[in-house]
């Protein structure tokens, strides 16, 4: 255990945290360096996580005890495939978003707030990573709160009244969610006497027998609490405003990562802590499955009615979160893989779409879909990349969205519930109905004011991340082998327990 690489989980969390605290100080004296620091931290951490994979590959899930204190006293971090997978997604995607943020921020956030923007961003990244690794309820609660505050602040940092209002709405609702989560944790602690996930899981069987009501209530509270934070369908009301009004890099990180990390935490708790017996006692998985299906259809239908491009993308997130929940609550291996792989794929696609929409707004100030006729003449690269994202969302083969849809569909079949294949196909069709017209308009539509669409491409620092994301969408659509391998292991970890 003298190998320094053992400490990587803590190092990864701490570098982001330290970066977050350094950013305002550094920004006071060397404003140029703040962004550079932030842009360095994420990819370096991603590299460290790849090194960490070796431990997980070597054998069992490995637990890291802070300061060497073993539970029940110490704080434990668990490093399993799921955690690494999620943490890798967080760092890779935020690295790309931070690259993009450099120029985009000038249009959206006051100059003296840039360093605080990076603080909040890094804080959010640290909190999300910690949520992925946390192995006790206490930390899960604390980091949920930190992530919530950081996310709200990332919206409110843009000095516009819509943002402040959306941020406030988000704050209030997610505080209610946090309250529910804390209450649930208290109920679990009451009957099991532990906060550590492993120990709770060990005591869960006996506790569920003695106090079935406690367990059921805490499960319900957890689902509602995390459901609010991850915008599970009827609890999504805060999301559209928050995600559409925020600065584009914030929208991307909120839609691409934040929403999903809560879903992962909830799923991890339900599957590994509560376990099969509790799930068997009540049709919880089926309930989530139905809620998720409703989310998929309803989210797409709402998106269909939108005229603002970012609102459309936000409602589409509601539907896509439904995919993740659906995949995992199918409880078959392929289904779980579909849900997990969609976390990655959706992170890529939605980040891409939000950044591309942000680029359009940055250059032209146009947000209404009907104004985007012929925009591709002005911004060909941006719209080409946007089309990749849109086709991926629809699930055209060759793009990564198709892979997750396919696994979800085969998963639904494996679980003996072929009805849900129809839900997935229905939603693909709906996705097509609202994404493809944008692409068609952009490329084939003709604008009355043809003259104003002189070719006007983005700065390289914005084009580059977009192109990277677009290529990643295609790459993981054609050669998803290594990704699927990791996802398969993560799914095994979830299902096996």
């Amino acid at each position, binding site marked *: 255990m003298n190998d320094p690489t053992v400490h990587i989980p803590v190092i990864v969390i701490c570098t982001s945290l330290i970066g977050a605290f350094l950013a305002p100080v550094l920004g006071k004296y060397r404003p140029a360096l703040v962004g550079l620091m932030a842009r360095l931290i994420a990819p370096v951490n991603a590299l460290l996580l790849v090194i960490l994979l070796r431990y997980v590959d070597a054998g069992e899930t490995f637990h890291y005890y802070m300061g060497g204190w073993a539970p029940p006293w110490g704080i434990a971090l668990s490093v399993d495939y799921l955690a690494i997978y999620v943490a890798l997604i967080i760092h890779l995607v935020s690295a790309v978003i931070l690259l993009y943020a450099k120029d985009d921020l000038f249009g959206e956030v006051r100059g003296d707030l840039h360093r605080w923007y990076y603080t909040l961003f890094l804080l959010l990244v640290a909190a999300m990573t910690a949520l992925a690794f946390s192995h006790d309820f206490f930390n899960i609660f*604390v980091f949920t709160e930190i992530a919530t505050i950081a996310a709200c*602040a990332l919206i*409110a940092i843009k000095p516009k009244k819509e943002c402040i209002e959306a*941020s406030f709405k988000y704050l209030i609702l997610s505080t*209610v969610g946090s309250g529910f989560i804390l209450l649930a944790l208290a109920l679990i*602690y009451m009957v099991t006497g532990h906060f550590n996930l492993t120990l709770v899981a060990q005591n869960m069987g006996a506790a569920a027998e003695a106090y079935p009501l406690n367990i059921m209530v805490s499960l319900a509270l957890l689902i509602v609490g995390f459901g609010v934070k991850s915008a599970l369908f009827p609890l999504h009301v805060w999301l559209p405003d928050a995600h559409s009004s925020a600065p584009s890099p914030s929208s991307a990180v909120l839609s691409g990562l934040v929403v999903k990390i809560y879903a992962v935490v909830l799923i991890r708790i339900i599957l590994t802590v509560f376990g099969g017996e509790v799930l068997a006692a009540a049709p919880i998985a089926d309930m989530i499955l139905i809620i998720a299906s409703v989310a998929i259809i309803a989210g797409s239908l709402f998106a269909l009615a939108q005229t603002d491009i970012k609102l459309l993308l936000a409602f589409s997130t509601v539907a896509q979160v439904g995919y993740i929940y659906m995949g995992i609550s199918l409880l078959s291996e392929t289904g779980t893989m579909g849900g997990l792989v969609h976390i990655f794929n959706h992170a890529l696609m939605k980040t891409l779409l939000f950044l591309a929409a942000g680029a359009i707004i940055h250059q032209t100030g146009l947000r209404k879909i009907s104004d985007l006729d012929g925009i591709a003449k002005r911004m060909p690269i941006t719209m080409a990349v946007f089309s990749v994202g849109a086709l991926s969302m629809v699930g055209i083969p060759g793009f990564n969205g198709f892979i997750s849809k396919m696994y979800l569909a085969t998963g639904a079949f494996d679980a003996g519930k072929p009805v849900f294949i129809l839900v997935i196909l229905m939603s693909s069709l709906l996705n097509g109905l609202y994404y493809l017209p944008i692409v068609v308009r952009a490329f084939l539509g003709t604008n009355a004011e043809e003259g104003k669409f002189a070719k006007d491409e983005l700065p390289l620092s914005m084009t580059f991340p977009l192109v990277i994301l677009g290529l990643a969408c295609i790459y993981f659509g054609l050669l998803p082998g290594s990704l699927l391998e990791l996802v398969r292991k993560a799914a095994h970890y979830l299902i096996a327990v």
Partner: protein
Amino acid sequence: MNIISGLIQNYFYFASIVIFLIGTHVMLTHSNLIKKIMGMNIMETGIFLFVVSIGYIRGGSAPIVPIDGRGVRFINPLPSALILTGIVVGVSLTAFALSLVIELYKYYGTTDSDEIMEMRRRER
């Protein structure tokens, strides 16, 4: 009768749930933003009360080791530690939310969410 006697014996739980519900109700139904934040605080204290009373042992003593402290039954200190963190997080949430309220007041001239909604609708 069983329920009532259960309630009487666990009056701390009962009270904390009542406070939690009052807080949540204020938070979700009152239109005044400052009231919402007060409700948030009340809701949080309700949960805190619940958590701490889990660790409470009648006749136990505070988890501070006395000089000749042998054979003393301490209460469970873990929930208290959790709640301490919770209080700090709560106050930062409150501060943040209040700063948002001040910002909103600057833009809309009101702290009432219904009026803000009305104004936004008119703007569209």
